[in-house]
Structure formats: C-alpha cells, structure tokens
C-alpha cells in the first residue's frame, strides 16, 4: 500500500533571517565536508592511477609524467565542475579540487613518506595542478559555456601542467656525471633510494630512446596532454550529468 501525503505548512524556521542563518550554516558545513570528501576521493584516484609519477622525482620524466598526469587528473574536476556549474552556478570546482589534492598530498608526504618511510622531502614533493584548475575555472567563468571551457580551458589544463611545475622540477634536471655515466640529479636521487618500483622505473622511464633532460619530447608531450585533456573533459562532463540526474532517483524497494 502506498503512503499518502499530507502537507505541513508550518516552516521549521520562524523568520527569513533565521532561515538565512540556517542556509549559511548548511553552506559552511557542506563546504568543509566537500573539502574532506575531495581530499579523500581525488587523492585516492590520483595515487592509484598516476601515483608513481607523482611520488618520486625520478619518475617525473619528460614524456609519461607530462602527458599522463593532466589527462587522467582532469576527469574528476570535469565531473564536479558540471555539478557545481549546472546546479549552483559556482565556477571554482577545478580549483577547489586541485587545492584539496595538493593539501592531501602534502599531509601524506610529510607525515608518511617522510615521517615513516624516511624519504627526503625534496625527493617526494607532489606536483601541483592548482594553476590548471584556475585556468579551467576562469575559462568557464568568462565564456559561460561548458563546451568552450572544455575546448580552451581543457587545453590550458594540459598545457599549463608542465609550465606550472617547471620551477619545481628544474633543479632536479641538472645533469651530473657519476663514474662516467651522465644522468640527472633526479636519476641520482632515485638510484640512491632503491624502491620496489625501481625495476619498473628502469623499464618505463629510464629508457635509451628519447631519454633527455627536456628538449623536444617536452613540447610533444605537452601538446598531446592538451588535446587529450579536452577529450577526457568532454567524456567526464557526462559523468557529472549522470550524478546530477541521480538527484531524482529514489527506490521504493531494494
């Protein structure tokens, strides 16, 4: 038997001012809640998809790191951006997410990677995506279009990643000569700190072909990341749409 409905006309708040206070309180609680939620979800997805490239200096190479990281990382900002923009007209989802990610990563690098596994901080610093998020959000705000934000902001997201992280990685790309072998400071750090991932590093990263200190592969990787970020953005806008539609989904029985 279905339930019948009876309307209750008395509001839970007595005055408009009290109602506004309730709304503001709800907004504040939800904002903090979302920050913790994104620190958890965005971070765990990051460590399980591009984690190794973000954990270590020597993995921050001029091909995989530059291409892989922004392309994979734009998925969740795109989905959340749709929810924030389509329902709340808030143009800061990508910035909010990237900020939460960097905060979560630094907490971990200091407390666990450095504080427990004893790696030096200048070997395990996280990359930043905050400038990419700012560019994506700003494009959305200026164009008022999810499509244009995807085309221009998505491309900027991919392209800006290397530029934003260049000041961080540059000191570790300086060449050194160790017993006749030419390598970067980052390589040298990696060989001093042998990890269970070192064989994969040698297989994937430290290959002879295109193994450079920057130069041509960087431009190719950056351009590829820009184009692919646009594609992934478009796909995951759809995921955001699905989650928004779930607002209307109720199940009478399981």
């Amino acid at each position, binding site marked *: *038997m*279905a*339930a*019948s*409905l*009876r*309307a*209750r*006309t008395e*509001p*839970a*708040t007595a*005055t408009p*001012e009290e*109602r506004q206070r*309730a709304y503001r309180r*709800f907004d504040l*609680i*939800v904002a903090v809640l979302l920050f*913790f*939620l994104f*620190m*958890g*979800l965005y*971070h*765990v*997805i990051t*460590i*399980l*998809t*591009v*984690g*190794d*490239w973000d*954990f270590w200096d020597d993995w921050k190479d001029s091909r995989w790191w530059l291409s892989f990281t922004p392309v994979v990382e734009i998925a969740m900002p795109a989905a*959340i951006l749709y929810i924030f923009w389509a*329902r709340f007209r808030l143009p800061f989802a990508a910035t909010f997410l990237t900020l939460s990610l960097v905060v*979560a*990563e630094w*907490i*971990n690098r200091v*407390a*666990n*990677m450095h504080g*427990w*596994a004893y*790696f030096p901080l200048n070997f395990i610093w996280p990359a930043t995506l905050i400038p990419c998020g700012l560019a994506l959000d700003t494009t959305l705000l200026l164009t008022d279009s999810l499509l244009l934000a995807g085309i221009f902001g998505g491309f900027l997201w991919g392209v800006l990643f290397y530029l934003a992280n260049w000041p961080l990685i540059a000191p570790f790309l300086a060449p050194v000569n160790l017993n006749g072998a030419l390598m970067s400071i980052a390589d040298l750090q990696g060989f001093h700190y042998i990890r*269970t*991932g070192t*064989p994969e590093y040698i297989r*994937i990263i430290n290959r002879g072909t295109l193994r450079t200190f920057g130069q041509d592969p960087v431009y190719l990787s950056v351009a590829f990341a820009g184009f692919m970020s646009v594609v992934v953005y478009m796909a995951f806008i759809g995921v955001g749409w699905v*989650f*928004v539609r*779930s*607002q*209307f*989904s*109720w199940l*009478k029985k*399981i």
Partner: protein
Amino acid sequence: MATLLNTTKVSDATLRSEAATGPQWISAPFIAIGCGIVAFLMVAARLYQQQYAWSAGLDATSPEFQKYWMNLLFAQFAFEAVAAAGIWGYVWFSRPRDLSHVETHEEFRRFGVFVALIFVYVFAVFWAASFFGEEDASWHQTVVRDTSFTPSHIVLFYWAFPIYIILGITAYLYGRTRLPRFAARHSLPWLIGVAGPFMLLPVVAFNEWAHSFWILEERFAAPVHWWFVIFAWSGLGLGGLLLQACDYLHELTTGRAQTYEGTGGPDHDPALDFEREAS
C-alpha cells in the same frame, strides 16, 4: 576603537538573536566530538605503526610480528564488531515508531543530525582513502611483503576501512529511521555513496588474491589496483545527495514539508516536482 566596539555590539546582538531562536542547527559540538573520536582512533593507529612497524613488522614469521601485529588485527576485529553492533543497534532500536506525525521542527533537527553524521562519515573516508591510502604506498615501495597482513594493511584495510563503513551505514540507518522522506524510499545517490565505498572492502580481497599471484609491488598505479578507482568514483553519489538535501532543506524551511501516512513509498514523489520546475 569605535569600529571594534560597534562590531562587538553587533556580535552580541547576533548572539542574543540566535539564542532566542533556539539551539544551533547542525550541531558543531556533535561534529567536533565525532571527528575528534575518528581522529583519535586514526592517530593512535598511526603512532602504533611508528612505534612497531620497523621494529616488529618486517618478518611475518617472527614472534614479534605475531605479538604486535596479528594481535592488533584480532583486537581491531573485536572492537569493530562491538562498535558496529552497539551503534547500529542503538540507532535501530531507539528509532521512533511513528513518522507520520513528526513535527517540522523535530524533522529539521533530525535533518541537522543527519548532515552531521554524513560529515563524520566523510571525515573517516578522508583518513582511509587519502591518509592511509598513500601511506600504504610508502610502506610497500620500501618493504617487499611476505604476508597480506602487513603493518600498513592492518591499519588501512582492517581499521580505517571498517570505521568509515560503520559510520556510513550508521548515517544511512539514521536517515531511514528518522527522516520521513528517506524512510519512505531509498535515495539512490545516497545508497551509491555508502555502498560504493563499502565495496572497497571486497576489492581488498581481490587485491590480495592478485598480489599473492604476481607480487605486483613494482608500480602502485598497476591495473590490479584500478578496481579501487571505480568504487572511489561512487563517492560522487554524495553530489546527488547534496542536491536532494538542498531540496529537502528548502521544503522544511518554507512550509512545504510533507508527511507520509501509511506504509511504503508515496505514489507521487515531491522530489520530482523540483525536477519538473528545473526543466
């Protein structure tokens, strides 16, 4: 100085006004205590790791490992069983039996408790997914495992995961038993937001099964870990719940709340009115 005094006067007036309109909605002390307990449990586990992981957690066949780590694992299981039974039992057996005559103010208060419970749940998810998730990488990039029950796994999979699962189901049960709208039917996004992260625990079984075959320590971003990614995405179900909560809050504060009389879900769903208005 004059500005400071004026500000103080305004603040006092605001405080008096809030005091006159009743207790604070969404109790900050409730959230602080809940998150404080979660933080205490997590920090205690982290300090235990700091003390005993390197000294007694490297060889699973050693007596020290049995003493400090396997006994910790069994103690965790016992704690979690008692906590789950106690909390879920309390929420279930203390439930009001008649939701058809709930007053709007009372429903509003319960909605605040519901939001606070979700906050504590999400806070626990942060510790599990982010803090201990990456900590697991730091350990397994450094130490080759000789057991599935490593010092990082014992805390991550069998402490942090069960705690957020207990809290998530608690919040779900609370909504089902106290809030008429959520008692009449299941919220699909909220169900996804609780059941999806819960599924990370079964994925642990697959993960360890696979690790026992291939010893995939080499790369943390290995495909064997990608099942975790799929279920982590389900946490976005909370986005759909947020929209439902906004709709619910608007109804409660503007005199448009509904009472559900009878059993089962209503034929007409007021939540869908919002959909029609939006489109």
